[in-house]
């Protein structure tokens, strides 16, 4: 009895953690399982039987496929823009001295500390007053905006652990600054950039709230789901969500693997051990804390 009690006490934290992990994963498992459901009505809320119908023709629901493609296009474009803009900011923050650092930091952090509904509402206010028509373009402007900060944080944490002697070596060997950047800095930075881009992509493709305010009649994947929730959700939504999950996980694993390889090759030691989405969000800690202490 006392042995069992001691075991329980010793492992209480682990058991709790296992429960928490289960709590995090159960809804995801449920989504995957329900993609094989065979609902009789229009809603996919209760289990009624096994079927692979939703998988044989995943992109068979035209409206849904259109919305999904719109989301992919939007995510690709906004990721590209946000990654470039955010990387430039991160380079300036880590490698240069300039006046107004506090203002720059504040500007980067404050969007992450603002509720999305406020961001969406304020963007809509501006678009209304300027008479800017809502649609793909306004969505693009908004998505780049909320992605930039996250890119800055991921790339910055990568840059902080960057061994600058590698660049110095290139310079010593006669490389111009541009050549050094292209052949040394960029390749070493690449895993961080890909990690940042993946995060921006995931944020964009999953955004509902800000898109809800700035989309007009354009329908993205989350907006489609929201609309469909009132009339009935096709099972294909679950298949696409599962597919998206699998692809993102695969991409994350690939990036982490690439990163390990790059680190081994160049012996660059970033200060966080995980530079994937987890590390990015974890280092968001610093950013958000500094947001909370305005100048």
């Amino acid at each position, binding site marked *: 009895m006392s042995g069992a009690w001691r075991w329980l006490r010793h492992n209480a*934290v682990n058991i*709790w*953690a296992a429960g*928490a992990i289960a*709590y*995090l*994963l159960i*809804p*995801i498992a*449920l*989504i995957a399982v*329900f993609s094989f459901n065979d609902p009789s009505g229009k809603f996919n*809320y*209760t289990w009624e039987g096994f079927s692979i119908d939703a998988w044989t023709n995943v992109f068979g629901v035209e409206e849904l496929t259109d919305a999904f493609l719109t989301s992919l296009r939007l995510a690709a474009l906004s990721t590209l823009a946000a990654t470039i*803009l955010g990387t*430039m900011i991160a*380079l*300036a923050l*880590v490698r*240069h001295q*300039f006046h107004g650092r*506090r203002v*720059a930091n504040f*500007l980067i952090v404050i*969007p992450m500390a603002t*509720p999305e509904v406020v*961001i969406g*509402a*304020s*963007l809509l*206010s*501006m678009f209304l007053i300027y008479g800017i028509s809502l649609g793909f373009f306004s969505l693009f402007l908004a998505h*780049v905006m909320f992605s*930039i900060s996250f890119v*800055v944080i991921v790339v*910055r944490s990568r840059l902080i652990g960057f061994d600058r002697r590698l660049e110095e070596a290139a310079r010593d060997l006669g490389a111009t600054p541009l050549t050094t950047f292209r052949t040394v800095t960029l390749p070493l930075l690449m895993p961080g950039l890909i990690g940042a881009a993946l995060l921006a992509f*995931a944020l964009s493709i999953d955004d509902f*709230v800000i898109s*809800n*305010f700035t989309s007009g009649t354009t329908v993205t994947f989350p907006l489609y789901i929201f609309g469909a*929730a009132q009339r009935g*959700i096709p099972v294909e939504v679950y298949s696409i*969500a599962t597919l998206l*999950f699998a692809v993102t*996980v695969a991409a*994350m694993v690939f990036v*982490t693997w690439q990163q390990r390889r790059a680190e081994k090759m160049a012996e660059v030691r970033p200060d966080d051990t995980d530079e*994937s*989405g*987890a590390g990015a*969000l*974890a280092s*968001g*800690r*610093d950013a*958000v*804390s*500094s947001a*909370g202490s*305005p100048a």
Partner: protein
Amino acid sequence: MNGASKPLGRRLLPYGLLGPGLLWLTLFFVIPLYFMARLSLESGTLETGFQFTWEWSNFSDAITTYDEQFIRSFIYAGVATLIALVIAYPLAYAIAFRGGRWKNALLFAVVAPFFTTYLIRTIAWTTILSDDGVVVDVLKAVGILGDDGRLLATGTAVIAGITYNFLPFMVLPIYASLERLDPRLIEAAKDLYSSSRTAFLKVTLPLSAPGIVAGTLLTFIPAAGDYINAIFLGSTNQHMVGNVIQGLYLNLRDYPMAAALSFILMAVIMLMVVIYIRFAGSEALMGEEEEAR
């Protein structure tokens, strides 16, 4: 190196790098806030058009009309943040100190919900908490819920959904602060004859405080503005301020009132954050502002 001795191009380079991105943030974050502020002081209707009239009554009307949703938002967000903290701390602790070679896989599991669509996750919860679902059955069997009791369309369901959706934001910062903690400090405490409990309370917990502060903020802020969970897991009786803002902007098109509400929401959150940071101590929270060298 002295800044003044650098060539001009090199001195301007950081501004060139910062410029486009910060301009984007200014144009599509700061300036919209200005327009929202202006809109919140206008009067009129959609038919007659809106005019700027310093209509301060929008703010007082917003508060008196929607005080219930406001208070509910902060209660739901506060409770969800507390529950998330209770769930997250031991999890982060286990990953940081007992994760071993499973560490990365466990972190992966923590962020996994982010890889499925937010709306679908929430809809999955409607299935989990549905009237004929397992959770309701179990709660009925142990007598917590009455025979005709239900979870959907209750505050409990909405809070459960919010807790779930923002839990990773709580786990990651706490994990990051625990991960940075030098285990030798805990060993030192134990060498000085402190019990595990005392070592935890006097060393581990205070050193992870920045993570707790960041985690609670990252959870509370989006939770207070959320309206998805209330839509899918609640009813109009569970509507939060986000639902009101969304409805006023997108359905009723009472823009001035909606803008006033958004502004109040943002102001209240900012105020709470500032007070909280003061209270929690800001010295540990300054972030990495001085990393340039």
